[in-house]
């Protein structure tokens, strides 16, 4: 058919030279290309930061190890954390949003395509600047290298006196750049969602991923200034003799922590909410039922967004706040757990009574649900302030946040990749390789991070480059390291799958999963203009209505009002 032929995937390799293709990438303003560029670049950083994690684990596998010295180790954990949050997590959600939102709301591109490109390049340059620190930071005096102050860079360790050379400056400047990228991307997604929806797509008819992208991007606008503001203040301290965090001049080290976590806590929800959104798209399709409680899912996410700006000092329970302060933040943290739990229950409700198909996206979602449940519960434990006094800054916390960021976020992103890769590329990812990836990763994840909780319970603090024997930590650390190797292999298999399936995967067609939202009406990959005719919708699942005219959604939705 005519439409199909125009939209054949990619350029035939014989037609266009490599330089030409590179040029097209450099000048593109197409949201689909930029979305894939975001994700592709993020995956490269994932591999680099992941290798750092493997190195860290090798150093900690046995006590008093000399594989990495303290300087190299301290840089590794700083770069690992900073990269994973800012150069992997944030660009993945930016890429997912930029790719999918226009397709899901029935429009041709983002509201500001050139701004979109600007955002990507700011992110890339910021990331490269951070890694340039290995070369550039020694400066003339030979001090410094990559930043080694931890990803949250507590004052006054980051002051001129304690952080010599320019390593901390690279940390600040590279993140200021990436924050500009994140901010403009956020504005773009919000504007697109509010102003470019196709006719009939009221806010309460948008796919949940779009809703959740909206919430996450508002949170980016609110939270990122906390970090950028604090970083500007730190620059003023380091270069203009300012005293924001200069304790010798009466400044406060704690105020850095407040500002950082005012950003830092919403940041982790900023990362998680798109994963929630992916789940809310994938679980229904593979359970063959609509999402249970769509309005509640929207409301719960908005509540999470609102409450999450009031919990930040639960990262600071050991700082010496008053009992009133500690109690307040404990309460707000408990409260944010409630809408989060509701979301888990709703996914459960979606699966209940369904006909579950265990395709790869669904497998990753199921693992997500178990793992996010555990992560949420360890989070509740950490909110119990006295318990927190033992657990904070220990490997229990490291286990908790890796449970959320790897066990939930990364698993959710893998689910999204397996689900939408066929749409973007036109071919399915190989199922067999995918199953190897899944099982190796699940096993490796649990071997590493289940064990890690116990190191924390036995008193192992975080960010230590070595430890003495006789503390009861040796076996646990060794086992933790073994799991890391499994995970590395699994991710390698995934990378191979992504590359191989691009040319050799099974052709996907428009709608390989029998799904219900607008992106599945286009060809795979979609034509550059997305939709030949602007769609008009009447319900949350336009394709369900088309496929099931005897039982359309709009009948139910109109009775809802």
């Amino acid at each position, binding site marked *: 058919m005519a439409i199909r032929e125009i939209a054949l995937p990619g350029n035939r390799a014989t037609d266009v030279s490599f330089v030409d293709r590179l040029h097209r990438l450099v000048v593109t303003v197409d949201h689909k290309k930029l979305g894939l560029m975001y994700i592709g670049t993020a995956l490269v950083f994932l591999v680099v930061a992941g290798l750092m994690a493997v190195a860290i684990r090798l150093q900690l596998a046995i006590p008093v190890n000399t594989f990495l010295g303290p300087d190299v180790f301290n840089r590794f954990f700083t770069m690992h954390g900073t990269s994973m949050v800012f150069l992997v997590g944030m660009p993945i959600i930016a890429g997912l949003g930029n790719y999918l939102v226009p397709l899901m709301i029935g429009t041709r591109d983002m509201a500001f395509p050139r701004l979109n490109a600007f955002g990507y390049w700011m992110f890339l340059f910021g990331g490269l600047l951070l890694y340039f620190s290995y070369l550039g930071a020694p400066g003339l005096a030979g001090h410094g290298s990559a930043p080694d102050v931890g990803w949250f860079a507590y004052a006054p360790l980051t002051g001129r006196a304690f952080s010599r050379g320019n390593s901390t400056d690279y940390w600040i400047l590279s993140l200021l750049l990436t924050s500009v990228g994140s901010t403009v991307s956020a504005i773009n997604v919000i504007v697109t969602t509010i102003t470019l929806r196709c*006719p009939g797509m009221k806010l309460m008819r948008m796919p949940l991923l779009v809703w959740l992208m909206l919430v996450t991007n508002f949170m980016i606008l609110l939270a990122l200034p906390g970090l950028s*503001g*604090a970083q500007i203040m730190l620059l*003023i301290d380091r270069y203009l003799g*300012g005293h924001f965090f200069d304790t010798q001049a009466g400044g406060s080290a704690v105020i850095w922590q407040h500002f950082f976590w005012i950003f830092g806590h919403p940041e982790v929800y900023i990362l998680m909410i798109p994963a929630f959104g992916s789940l809310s798209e994938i679980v229904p399709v593979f359970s063959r039922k609509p999402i249970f409680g769509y309005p509640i899912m929207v409301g719960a996410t908005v509540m999470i967004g609102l409450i999450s700006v009031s919990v930040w000092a639960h990262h600071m329970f050991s700082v010496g706040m008053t009992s009133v302060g500690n109690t307040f933040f404990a309460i707000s943290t408990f409260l944010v757990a409630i809408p989060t739990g509701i979301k888990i229950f709703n996914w459960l409700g979606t699966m209940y009574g369904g006909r579950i198909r265990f395709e790869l996206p669904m497998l990753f979602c199921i693992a997500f649900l178990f793992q996010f449940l555990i992560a949420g519960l360890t989070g509740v434990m950490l909110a119990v302030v006295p318990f927190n006094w033992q657990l904070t800054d220990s490997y229990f916390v490291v286990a908790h946040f890796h449970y959320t960021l790897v066990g939930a976020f990364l698993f959710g992103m893998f689910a999204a990749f397996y689900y939408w890769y066929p749409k973007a590329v036109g071919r399915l990812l190989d199922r067999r390789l995918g199953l190897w990836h899944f099982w190796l990763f699940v096993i490796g994840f649990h071997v590493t991070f289940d064990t890690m909780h116990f190191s924390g319970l036995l008193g192992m603090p975080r960010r230590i480059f070595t430890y003495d024997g006789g503390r009861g930590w040796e076996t646990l650390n060794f086992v933790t390291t073994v799991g890391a190797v499994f995970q590395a292999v699994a991710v390698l298999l995934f990378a191979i799958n992504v590359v191989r399936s691009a040319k050799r995967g099974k052709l996907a067609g428009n*709608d390989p999963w029998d799904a219900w939202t607008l992106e599945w009406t286009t060809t795979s990959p979609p034509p550059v203009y997305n939709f030949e*005719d602007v769609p008009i*919708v009447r319900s949350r699942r336009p394709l369900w209505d088309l*496929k099931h005219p005897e039982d359309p959604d709009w009948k139910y939705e109109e009775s809802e009002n």
Partner: protein
Amino acid sequence: MINEASLPLALEAPEWKLPSSRKVAVVCLVLTETCLFSIFVAAYLFYVGKSLTGPSPREVLELPVLSTICLLSSSITIVFAEGAFKKERKRLFQLLWLLTLVLAAVFLTMTAIEWHRLIYEKGLTISTNLFGTTFYSLVGLHASHVIVGLCLLLLVLIFSLTGSLAQMHRERIQMISWYWHFVDAVWVIVFTVVYVIGR
């Protein structure tokens, strides 16, 4: 699985009016900048009275009455300028727009003069004490936003004088004026925090 050519569902398009992209974008920008200023305001308030040495606000600060009047008036002149633009009264628009620009420039000049006085006569710099650090940071952050606004205003003036401005640019001019109102509103806050509360 599905017949590609089926969409749209042969529905009649409903009444469908969504907000303007530019307006939503500027609102988002204002939102995020408000958060940025809030951080600096929070730091300022936190450190009130905590300087270990050096000149205190009471000793050195004088109420910037004239510059404030200038800046806030520029919000009024810009509204009139927009009105003139809508009525296609080109010269009046250019005059009022220039007036806005001049008022902004006066504000910046007077700020620079005040800073010169503080640095050279009163010995207050950004590194003198906590007051110096937080004062110059907060007021400086605001001033940088005024400078950006000034550049935008200048750009529009140049476009108008060279005959490149038309009615189709009305919304863009309105967006610049929204940004300008935001900058003025921030000054009200900064003024209150620094010159009223902080003293």
